[in-house]
């Protein structure tokens, strides 16, 4: 192989313009990302080290402070629960999408996509109205005589999760639906022909085949959950504070840019690692027609 390649100069020359052209086409996009995304991140990293001379002092403060430990744990907890709930709800919906056809599939997809394009603040704001002491849910419960005093639904972990899962669901459904469409349906038919009931065919054939898609969706949804700001700020109590809120307060109210940058950099490292795992197993270049080695 290599011997043949070495003795083939004309082909190598023909490849020449093929190298210049894609570089030229990618140059504007990559330059833009480098200047307006990567350079600011480098600047933030530098800022986190330059708080007080050059030192890791800001990182030390972040790692040793009980506040940050608490907020980081809350963030991981809320993000994990929200991810699990989003997957549990998205799975039956995505499965329903795979077995519906035509108008029904179109209609269901519309109901999935419209909330996806509604602003996160707007969707969160709506729960503020629904879950309040005089909101629809408490009103209904009282009318039915189930409770006498309004339930404290708002400003709780429950409210934050209700809001977060509603925001994460459309994307989770779409990702799972895409993964399920790649499952070969004839395998389920084969199981049924050989005598499996519908439920058994699903349990032993379809479900195991859909698991890689579930893991992929879980990583993606978890990464997005880690950065939530609006929902815990509006629907949670101070006990539900997530790390994005703490960074916001450090930067915009306390003007502790060193610590804000350090905490931001730690969050960046965590999310980048998870995104890298995702990319390793669920290659992103499928989007452009598969990997070319």
């Amino acid at each position, binding site marked *: 192989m290599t011997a043949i390649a070495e003795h083939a100069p004309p082909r190598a020359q023909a490849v020449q313009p093929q190298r210049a052209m*894609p570089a030229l086409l990618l140059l504007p*996009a*990559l330059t833009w990302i480098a200047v307006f995304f990567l350079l*600011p*991140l480098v600047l933030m990293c530098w800022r986190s080290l330059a708080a007080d001379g050059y030192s890791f002092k800001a990182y030390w403060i972040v790692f040793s402070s009980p506040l940050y430990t608490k907020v980081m744990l809350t963030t991981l907890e809320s993000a994990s629960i929200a991810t699990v709930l989003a997957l549990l709800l998205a799975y039956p919906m995505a499965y329903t999408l795979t077995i519906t056809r035509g108008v029904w599939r179109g209609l269901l997809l519309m109901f999935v996509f419209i*909330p996806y394009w509604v602003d996160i603040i707007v*969707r969160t704001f709506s729960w503020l109205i629904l879950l309040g002491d005089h909101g629809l849910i408490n009103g209904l419960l009282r009318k039915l005589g189930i409770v006498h005093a309004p339930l404290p639904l708002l400003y709780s972990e429950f409210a934050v999760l209700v809001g977060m899962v509603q925001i994460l669901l459309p994307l989770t459904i779409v990702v799972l639906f895409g993964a399920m469409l790649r499952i070969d349906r004839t395998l389920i038919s084969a199981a049924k022909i050989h005598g499996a009931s519908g439920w058994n065919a699903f349990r032993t054939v379809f479900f195991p085949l859909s698991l890689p898609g579930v893991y992929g969706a879980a990583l993606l949804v978890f990464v997005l959950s880690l950065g939530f700001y609006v929902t815990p700020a509006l629907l949670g109590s101070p006990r539900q504070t997530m790390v*994005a809120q703490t960074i916001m307060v450090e930067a915009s109210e306390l003007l502790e840019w060193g610590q804000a940058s350090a905490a931001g950099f730690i*969050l*960046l490292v965590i999310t980048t690692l998870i995104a890298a795992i995702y990319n390793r197993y669920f290659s992103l270049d499928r989007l452009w027609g598969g990997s070319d080695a």
Partner: protein
Amino acid sequence: MNPTADRIVLGAAAAAIVAYLIFPVIVVLAISFSAGNFLEFPPPGLSLRWYRAIAGDPEWVSAFMVTLKVGSLTALLATLLGVPAAFALVRYVVPAKALLSALILCALVTPPIVTAISTYLFFVPLGLDNSIVGLACAHAVSGMPFVVINTAASLRSADRNLERAAIIHGAHPLWAIARITLPIISPGIIIGAILAFVHSAHELLIAMFVLGGVGKPVTVKIWSDVQATSDPTIAAASAILIGLAILTFVSVSTAQALARRRNG
């Protein structure tokens, strides 16, 4: 379980999930038409008073104008940067394609607060804070993936032989792309541009740092009002954004239907 029972259980689950997804949207729409003075659902009566309140308030009008300007500029930048990148990724063998793809998409999974504070630290010394152009430059980074993904999808399904035919018949390759390929893939480009616009119109944290003082865009204005006031003006402003979402859905579906008819 027998097949009908399966279907009933699944149908009920799907209906419940749809209700959970759509109900918050319906609530905000209903309250925006409220005749009452408070955020209550169901509203005591219907009126357009809160929409009139927005139209009559120069702060809200300016917020919508700022969002429109930032969003349009973002969509334009994302398209100019993203379409060539999509051509490179779909049509050429590019070294380290996985890494390049990750680089183009990573702005979407980076926590917005991290992007926001780093952008602010970068913009202040350059004097790009408090600037509509500055905010659009930052939004273009996360708007670009939408253009690249949708353009790439169109490009993969487009028949390249039409372009080759034009070149064989004497057209310059660039002219063939401009006159043959670009019109064929235009629905994908349009979808990408619309999504980049919507993405910019919804973005809160970068906007808060860059345009948080005077000349706020709509999301920042809604966010500061949500914490301070409790009349249905916010609901009406939100409803206008929901209208934008529905308009987006309709235009995206139309563009997709157009693309299907062209290829099918």
